């Protein structure tokens, strides 16, 4: 839909005469987005450009002389050689796989359970919204308390079941990452479930009747009809959740602080620590650019999948 074209005859004649006006006409209503784009330019793209710039410098805020010494690619090379960064990158990817995987499986199960109208299912749908709205920092503090080795409710019941919790779920390096994944699964599975439920609800009943007439069992109907039709929404859900898990900060910062050791260190948190507690700005900027590249790679994969399916907005 372009700019309204049939205003008055003389106006369009004038537009044809003047190249500037013609160009303006071709722009359509894009100038309406100009203030927002200008705002992005100042407060998003300028900082990002600045971040690219300082990533080539040794720039420490704690340095009293505040010198910015050109370092070339040193900060990037440092990241690849830094064991902590490598662990953080690996943990970030592992976190995405575990959390998004669990959210998809559990979300699909919940969506299927809620798809058939039974008394009580609307109430369940309403209650499922609660985790989505809750302040992440409050959620993180609640789980930190629940996981406390000595007084935490989760630790207590695990012990009652005869599980040796040691220093607690978040105190043991072997379970700490999994404990954090559970926090994310708790808060965001409902979103995936409700997305997939919306997808299931939009599927026409005729298809399933046809499948039934052809002798398909309930399981076959699900695997061969419902699930393939759900693919576009499933991919969008995966994309949204993957992006969000890469942004994960609050729960790592509050629940484990990246520990014990580097067991739950993720890129976001490590960058934050490097830049804003150790004030090594050049290195932090270099790492955040690497994170952007990693996210870009994941996005490209999803967009390819979306493109292949021919799904459009």
């Amino acid at each position, binding site marked *: *839909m*372009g*700019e*309204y074209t*049939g*205003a008055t005859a003389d106006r369009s004649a004038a537009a044809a005469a003047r190249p500037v006006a013609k160009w303006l006409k*071709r*722009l*359509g*209503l*894009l100038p*309406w*987005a100009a*203030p*927002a*784009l200008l*705002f*992005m330019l100042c*407060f*998003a793209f300028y*900082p990002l450009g*600045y*971040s690219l710039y300082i990533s080539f410098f040794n720039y420490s805020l704690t340095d009293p002389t505040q010198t910015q010494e050109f370092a070339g690619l040193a900060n990037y090379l440092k990241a690849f050689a830094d064991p902590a960064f490598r662990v953080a990158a690996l943990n970030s990817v592992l976190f995405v796989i575990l959390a998004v995987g669990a959210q998809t499986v559990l979300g699909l199960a919940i969506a299927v*359970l809620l798809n058939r109208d039974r008394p*009580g299912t609307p109430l*369940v749908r*309403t*209650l499922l*919204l*609660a*985790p989505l709205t*809750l*302040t992440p*920092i*409050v*959620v993180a*503090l609640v789980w930190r*308390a629940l996981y406390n080795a000595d007084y935490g409710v989760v630790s*207590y019941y695990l012990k*009652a079941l005869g599980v040796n919790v040691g220093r607690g779920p978040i105190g043991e390096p072997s379970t700490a990452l999994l404990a954090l994944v559970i926090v994310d699964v*708790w808060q965001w599975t409902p*979103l995936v479930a*409700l997305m997939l439920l*919306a997808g299931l609800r939009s599927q026409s009943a005729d298809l399933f009747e046809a499948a039934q007439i052809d002798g398909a069992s309930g399981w076959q109907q699900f695997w061969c009809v419902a699930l393939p039709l759900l693919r576009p*929404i499933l991919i*969008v859900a995966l994309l949204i959740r993957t992006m969000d898990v890469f*942004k994960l900060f609050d729960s790592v*910062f509050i629940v484990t602080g990246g520990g014990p050791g580097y067991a739950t260190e993720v890129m*976001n948190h490590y*960058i*934050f620590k490097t*830049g*804003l507690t150790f004030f090594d*700005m050049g290195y932090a*900027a270099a790492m*955040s*650019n690497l*994170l*952007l590249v990693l996210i870009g790679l994941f*996005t490209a994969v999803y967009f390819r999948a979306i493109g292949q399916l021919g799904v459009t907005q």
Partner: protein
Amino acid sequence: MMGRRRQRAADAVTYTLLALIMGFFLFPFVWLLSTSLKPARDAFAIPPVWIFRPIMDNFRTVFSMVPVVAYLKNSLTIALGTTALSLLLGVPAGYGLARTASRAAGNSALLMLAIRMAPPVALLIPFYLVMRDIRLLGTYLAVILLQSVFNTTFVAWMMRGYFLSLPADLELAAMTDGCTRFGAFWRVALPLAVPGLATAGIFTFTFSWNDFLLPMLLSGRTTRTLTLGILETMSTYEIGWNNMAAIGMITILPVLLLGYILQPYYVRGLTLGAVRE
């Protein structure tokens, strides 16, 4: 068709599974609510105390421990400021992108989506330096500006989708009757888009209210938000959970209410309009 007995068995299995799932999703919330109403010694009692006489003492204590009212005011100022700025920039942008079918418009929309996907930390570090240089660190404005970067893109995408779902013919009719483009937007399109506007606004408010990372770095002593205030109840006693739970309840109550109001639009909002219920 399924037999009656089989149907009943299926129902029993479904309800059992749903009960287990709801137990998992409600349990942390029940813990928070009950802990906020417990006396200190019950808050971390082992074995956990689930039956007790609820008291309001924690809420009273929290108000004397932390300047809750000031933090509420700061959170509200920042959330309202972010909402206003994001709507002011994002709504016309969404309209322009919805009513322009050029490649430039498509690319601008994708550019905004890319910003939305960038992790806040990547922007936060250079933004922090910029704000320091122009001496805005510690002000409401610093927090509002960066939150608005993320939320303007959100509003623009939401509103683009909303305006696309409205017929353009009405605006064209208004323009043949002598309305300017702005008049057609203001008098025809915008009133029709009020539900979308309300949804985008409430979401932005919620995102801003729930934010912790940006205020932690960008706000100052006099502009601290409630999400930062919660941590102050934790610093002295690691297991002072009853007070933390009380201020936590104060923090989540507004967003929980807004979420309840927005219920029919929630999934659509969180998926940037990709999924409609």
